[in-house]
């Protein structure tokens, strides 16, 4: 019914991704600063005694829970706005979410997920 989308993106892409999602009416999301390691070997930094490799790079983990029917659109938006074409662009993981509770109201499930003006709301119009 709901899916959790975790995207690991370049920090400098955060603004673009957020913009793309919001334009599409996807509002709820959370950003976490992480250090990532992947296909990209790492990067060379320079210290006092010369260069050294850093193999943990700064990445932003973007977590969005959406209704199942919005997964594809969301993933596509993220993938397109976050890609540069170079190693290190990151990955997106999709996993199941069983229920959603809105803290303010205690509402559960689909009700807790709907925003006025969000992607579903727009579709209906």
């Amino acid at each position, binding site marked *: 019914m709901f899916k959790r989308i975790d995207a690991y993106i370049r920090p400098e892409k955060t603004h673009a991704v957020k913009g793309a999602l919001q334009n599409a009416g996807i509002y709820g999301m959370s950003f976490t600063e992480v250090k990532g390691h992947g296909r990209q070997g790492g990067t060379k*930094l*320079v*210290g*006092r*005694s*010369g*260069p*050294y*490799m*850093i193999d943990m790079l700064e990445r932003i983990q973007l977590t969005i829970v959406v209704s199942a029917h919005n997964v594809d659109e969301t993933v596509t938006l993220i993938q397109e706005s976050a890609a540069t074409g170079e190693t290190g662009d990151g990955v997106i993981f999709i996993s199941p979410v069983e229920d959603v509770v809105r803290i303010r109201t205690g509402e559960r499930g689909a009700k807790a997920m709907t925003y006025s003006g969000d992607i579903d709301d727009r579709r209906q119009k």
Partner: protein
Amino acid sequence: MNSGDTAWVLVSTALVTIMMPALAFFYGGMVRRKNILSTLNLTIISMAVMGVIWVMFGYSLAFSDQGNGFIGGLDKMFLRGVTPDSVSGSIPELLFIAFQGTFAMITPALITGAFVERIRFKSYIIFIALWGILVYAPVCHWVWGPDGWLGHGAGVLDFAGGAVVHITAGLSALVFALLIRRRQGFEEDIITPHNIPYTVLGAGLLWAGWFGFNGGSALAADGIAALAVVNTNTAAAAAAVVWMILSWMDDGKPSVLGIVTGAVVGLVAITPAAGFVAPWAAIVMGALAAPVSYYAIRTIHKMGIDESLDVFACHGMAGLFGALATGIFATDSGLVSGHGIGQFVTQTWSVVVVGLYAMAITFVLCKVLDMTIGLAVTDKEEQIGLDVSEHRERAYS
């Protein structure tokens, strides 16, 4: 007693005191966040311990004229007999005591860069107290004491502490680093500075504070003090520029950590020469000191020695270089001003003597501490970080 000279040395005392938090942050920026308080504290405690010792008997050992060429007497313990009216040159003796005290407080702190992130605090505090008494006070007496065998006796030139401060600290750092175990992860190159801005802040304040360190060593507000300040500034600037070029060429980009390291190295190198050489020579000395320390860092690192914050390379080597260069560039007695090789020879053997002495005492102190309390914390304590394991504190939250 001259009020202008007094004013200047009073301020110089404050400026050297500012150098201590500056040094703490210069070092602190380069350690990992779990060791920042520990690292800062090493300097703060040096201020506290040496501050008390200096008044108790350090000053007497270093500067009393009731001893011999090797060590002062104990007649001025607790500053006995010194009143606000006592005079030393054109300034109050109490001021001379205060100014020299700041040197005694900061010199042991310089060494701490060698063993940050693993030093056992209890050992450290014993070490600096003994080092201050057994190394700093005697060498200070030799070079600057009223009847010191190196300064007064052999005519060694050391304007503001090339030998007394930087060579003693820098060479002791090397010995200490060889005797304490390395940090875990040193080999894998994964220890990265946690806050380089702190290091830049420290370097910036050191730069300004050094005007008091070198300029104040004129012990008067006069042309020599002014010369010392011009040279200090110029050598720092020149060394920073050259270091920037070296790192730019080697690594493709100019390193900021390198640039501020260069500035500090320039400050160290000019220290023994500050009031003795012309400004053009300060450019030369700064420019040459940079590669000396730059390559020393890389060599030490390649040799697998974890002299963690490069005290030997930056203070020891630049101090040695500066002391020797003083024999070359000193206007009144140096080689290039046509006064022959005499001064250079004196400088050379004296720094060898001072260096060996500092190393020998440090070796004995470290060995004894290692066999008793232990120099380093346990592996697990190191992993947890010294802030928590040695102080039960967390720097940031």
